[in-house]
């Protein structure tokens, strides 16, 4: 047993982090605010070249064939650096394509040519359904700009629908300036690359990667708060000397650590087919979602008025945390199936 990232993994992650710092600094989120796509197509293509979209995909479809825990570490960096763009949808989309034999499509996604936007199947009180291979109802699309497919996930499995087949596409304003959003209607739109949950636990895989992204947010906001607590002077001393601040940072450290370790545990559990993998993954999504939202919210408070401004990064983390929390089952949605599991192994 070894739960510490290997030297190999650390190197891989450092390379990704360097790319993000250079190509997609957080300021870019604010700068591209009015652009149709949250991430510049050029950066997307370069990220694909770097192998970010196919890290854990089979070599046969153009991936690097690395294990899920590597991919989780990558998504942690995506969360930490607040990288925008439909990474989660595309990575899972490529896997669906590969699993259902559409190797070409998988390759296109991994090469960054084809984008997959995650869909949420509830808009107001309308809940879209997948039955007999078709999707019907209203859906919410995240980062639909330039996406050829939408990723659709239900309790029974997951698949893709062509965005061109959707109607009433309407952009709506997203709270997160780094996530574009739209609604659309599906009138019996065929679902392709459908993979039943019984064949592959694709939704759990998505939940692990989402949890990892949330971990990155929880860690980044812990670090933002800690740095501010060390340097911001009030009453003649750094505010971090005050327990109201110090203990809040300590609580952030606890929740980030719990989220990190549980997410890595879950990634390894799922990869290695542990009997309690579903338990571990759902637990990870719960603690990581809470850690990200709580830490980001506390970061606003620690920064006071500054944290309440659009110019500061704190709210971007909070808003992203809310978005990722909703992907592959929110905290609330995870709890009932978690309780239905057998006790952990």
């Amino acid at each position, binding site marked *: 047993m070894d739960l510490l990232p290997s030297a190999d993994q650390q190197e891989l992650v450092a390379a990704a982090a360097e790319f993000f710092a250079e190509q997609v600094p957080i300021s870019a989120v604010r700068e591209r605010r009015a652009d149709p796509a949250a991430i510049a197509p050029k950066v997307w293509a370069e990220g694909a070249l770097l192998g970010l979209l196919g890290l854990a995909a089979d070599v046969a479809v153009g991936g690097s064939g690395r294990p899920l825990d590597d991919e989780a570490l990558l998504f942690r960096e995506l969360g930490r650096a607040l990288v925008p763009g439909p990474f989660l949808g595309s990575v899972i989309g490529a896997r669906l394509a590969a699993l259902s034999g559409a190797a070409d499509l998988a390759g296109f996604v991994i090469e960054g040519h084809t984008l997959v936007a995650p869909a949420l199947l509830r808009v107001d009180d309308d809940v879209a359904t997948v039955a007999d291979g078709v999707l019907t109802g209203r859906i919410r699309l995240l980062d639909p700009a330039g996406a050829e497919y939408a990723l659709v996930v239900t309790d029974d499995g997951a698949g893709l629908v062509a965005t061109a087949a959707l109607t009433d596409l309407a952009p709506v304003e997203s*709270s997160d300036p780094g996530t574009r959003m739209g609604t659309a209607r599906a009138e019996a739109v065929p679902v392709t690359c459908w993979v039943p949950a019984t064949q592959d636990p694709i939704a759990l895989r998505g939940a692990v990667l989402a949890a990892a992204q949330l971990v990155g947010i929880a860690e980044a906001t812990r670090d933002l708060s800690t740095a501010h607590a060390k340097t911001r002077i009030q009453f003649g001393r750094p505010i971090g000397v005050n327990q109201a601040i110090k203990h809040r940072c300590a609580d952030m450290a606890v929740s980030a650590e719990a989220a990190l370790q549980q997410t890595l545990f879950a990634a390894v559990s799922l990869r290695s087919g542990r009997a309690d993998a579903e338990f571990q993954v759902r637990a990870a999504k719960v603690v990581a979602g809470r850690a990200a939202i709580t830490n980001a919210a506390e970061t606003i408070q620690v920064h006071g008025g500054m944290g309440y*401004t659009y110019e500061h990064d704190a709210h971007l983390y*909070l808003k992203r945390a*809310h978005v990722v929390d909703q992907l592959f089952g929110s905290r609330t949605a995870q709890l009932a199936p978690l309780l239905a599991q057998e006790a952990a192994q």
Partner: protein
Amino acid sequence: MDLDFSPEQLLFRDEVRTWLAENAPSEPRPHGAAPMREYDLAWQRTQWEGGWAGIAWPTEYGGRGLTTLQQLIWYEEYARKGMPSIDACFVGLNHAGPTLITRASEEQKAHHLPRILRGEVVWCQGFSEPEAGSDLASLATRGEIDGDDIVVTGQKVWTSFADLADHQELLVRTDRSDRKHHGITWVIADMHSPGIDVRPIETIDGGAEFCEVFYDEVRIPLANVVGEVDKGWAVAMSTLSFERGTAYTAGQVRLAALVENLIELARERTGPDGRRPAIADDEISRRLATCRAEVASLRAMTYAGICRNLASDAPGPEGSIIKLYYSDIAKQVARLAMDVLGPDGLEFVSRWVPGGWSGHYFYSYSASIGGGTSEIQRNIIGDRVLGLPR
């Protein structure tokens, strides 16, 4: 003890109701800066003409000379009727005005107070600075006395509506010896003076009511000093205590209405299980009922505070209890709204339009920051209400 209004208070309430029913603005409040200023001032003018401006202000300055109890009745009826927020007029009516009443000279009062009530001017507050947030007394904006003027250079921040304002209650440092609370002067700045530069700050809820204000050798007549030069700290503190006391009444009444709206929403929307209405969810229904209980107790605290104020003079540190509790509840209500909305909460809807819950949610983060952070309120309660050692 009783909760009954006296016959004249009841009469007063009936008058309020009748007047509001007849005079409520028919147009919705606009959100652009200039039209909002005009709207708020016009509505204030209407209230003044109807005899509803400065209900608890002294009659000699155009007020009604009634008690904060009548003021409370007004706020409650006003909120019940869903009347517009009075944002642009807030500082004049609730900060600057009360401070002037307590601390200003007769000339200052006679000049400014009626203008506030008549809706002729917008006021803003110039207290916080980038390096003087919670530690307000460390403010560094310089005021050099030069002849009959104070010449001000420096920067203020978090000034609501500075871009719309005519006057500012401004704190400057006139003595730079190291006694932090000494050497601060409270002065009325004309926002149209040369050398003042205002830049709006965008906030996390899409609002832009906060501004940075830059001062470059701005000349302010010494006649505009309220209280004495170098002794403005006590003047400012009286304003802050006031802010934490009854000034929250209106916000509190709005919060109660928000809880009822949220209950309505939870009845109408399907809950997290996708089958039953949200209100049928045991967790959501308990949290909704808890919000109701808390808002009720916040109101009871406010009533008790008003009764206490009727018996004494200036608002005490107890105002911090109301402020802190209000902030906690406001944040809880907003979080609950997000949980009721689920994925739909990701969509941004401004709090100025119906169903603007996500806007409200992000706005709620200001509740525990503005007007003194919750940490500062807890310090005040610990130090000044409970007498704990510093």
